[in-house]
């Protein structure tokens, strides 16, 4: 088994009386993709918010490479190597592609931020679009730019919230290929929240299933696919 990078331990997050997350345990391992699936409202995006510090935990803790980061803010967690994308494309529309990727690299505080930005642009086939304003890009290109911003600064963990949403089958397939390649060539761990089951089961090393803020199953893609609770709660005939 590869070494553990991130461990969410007993994470609970309540909104008043609503238990959005309840005793969630989640582990990410170096260079591996963990798929996170579940019906709408299961708490998949909330767990990313909890891990990245966008929402404060009610209980539990987040451990990154042995250090408890539960009390750190969003910016500190980013500098330690936690990076995320959003369900809706979240880029800087009025800036050129290169300017914003360079800015994101520079803000991580690494010395070779210019090389890093260029490598990210090349990795995601955006190098030729460097001088284009982000709001002039096509939707698929904007999704890749969103991922590029998250990938700058050589993060240890990438938390991706439905990166394939709205993409064509070919674009989804291409992006899935990029993600799989990233884990080995960039040595990054990925938590992939995604509704496209072909993608999740195709590229994930492990899969976690959420329902009503709880983990109801976890294991390899084959184990999860065969789990009767998962078939009943979520996969249904898609499995």
């Amino acid at each position, binding site marked *: 088994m590869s070494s553990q990078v991130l461990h969410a331990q007993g994470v609970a997050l309540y909104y008043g009386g609503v238990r959005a997350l309840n005793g969630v345990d989640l582990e990410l391992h170096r260079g591996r993709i963990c798929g996170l699936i579940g019906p709408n409202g299961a708490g998949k995006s909330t767990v990313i918010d909890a891990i990245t510090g966008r929402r404060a935990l009610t209980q539990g803790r987040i451990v990154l490479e042995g250090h408890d980061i539960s009390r750190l803010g969003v910016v500190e967690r980013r500098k330690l190597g936690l990076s995320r994308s959003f369900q809706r494309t979240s880029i*800087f529309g009025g800036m050129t592609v290169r300017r*914003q990727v360079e800015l994101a690299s520079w803000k991580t505080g690494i010395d070779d931020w210019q090389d890093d930005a260029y490598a990210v642009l090349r990795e995601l086939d955006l190098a030729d679009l460097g001088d284009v304003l982000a709001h002039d890009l096509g939707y698929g290109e904007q999704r890749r730019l969103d991922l590029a911003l998250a990938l700058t600064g050589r993060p240890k963990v990438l938390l991706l919230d439905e990166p394939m949403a709205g993409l064509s089958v070919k674009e989804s397939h291409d992006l899935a290929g990029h993600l799989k390649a990233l884990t080995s060539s960039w040595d990054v761990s990925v938590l992939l929240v995604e509704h496209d089951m072909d993608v999740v089961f195709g590229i994930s090393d492990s899969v976690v299933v959420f329902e009503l803020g709880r983990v109801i199953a976890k294991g390899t893609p084959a184990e999860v696919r065969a789990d009767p609770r998962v078939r009943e709660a979520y996969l249904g005939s898609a499995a």
Partner: protein
Amino acid sequence: MKYTQSLLVALVAMFGGWLIVLVTPSASLLGVFTQAVIYAMFALGVGFLLKQNGLVSFGHALYFGGVGYAVGVVLTLDMMPAEWAIPAVLLAIGAAAFAVGLVIVRVPGIAFGMLTLAIGQMFYLLATRARGITGGSDGMGVPWPTTLYGFPEKALRQPETLFMITWVALVLVALLLHLLLKMRFGAVTEAIRDNEERARFIGIRTTVPRAAVYAISAVVSAIAGLLSNYNSAFASPESLHWSVSAITLLMVIVGGFQTLAGPIVGAIVYFLVSDILGDYATYSMAIFGAALIAVIVFSPHGITGAVTSFVKRRRKGAASLSAGATREREAT
């Protein structure tokens, strides 16, 4: 290299100011131009806040009018020479605006505008009520010294000299802001303006840069106010009134706020239109109001935005014509 072009443009612009002095037929018209340039500087400050923070201020008259009172009080009480009072007051305004900015830039959209309005009006009322210090509704005369930085007042107050001082100050401030935006600070503030949450998730602490933009815009407005005050040697509570902020905002929107040139163009157009109207100048606000409606409907990015998109379209058209001609030549 990338700064050389900006410096050259600034030098040409300064030379252009000298040409304006040479060709302007009367001192009174030059006085109007001086007012236009002072308001161009003020609009530049208000526009900088809108461009980099995406925030609309209805209270920047506080900095434009307040600087005259601040210098007036310092000089009246003989606290320090004018040569020291000018930078000290500007620094103090910058520091105070930064502190205020740290609190108010967290408030989004229209609420921010209302906060700036409230703060501005608070100081307007203070200026009209505190008769002992400010002269109340009558305003206060500012005892500028007979020499400033070694130059005699008589020479400085010549219409040509006053115009050149304000013009060169405008060019230098615009150049400094342009260079600042080319640096990392420009990218950071653009990112925050476009998408503050994403900016935080790429590692940017968003409050301090936003407060810094607010402080810079306040200082630029204060420089404009200082020039205006030296021109008139009088601090009036009317210069603190919210309507002064509103007119300047109008200039910014008509000129366009997506470039640094936009607010400058808006202010100059405002003063030229007012001057051309002559006897009908009392209707200038109605005419400018109609212009504002036309701009918002037909060119939301203002005059400079319309010019920029026209030039882009022309270039695109020329490029496609040239490509077509090349294809035809190859075909034959």
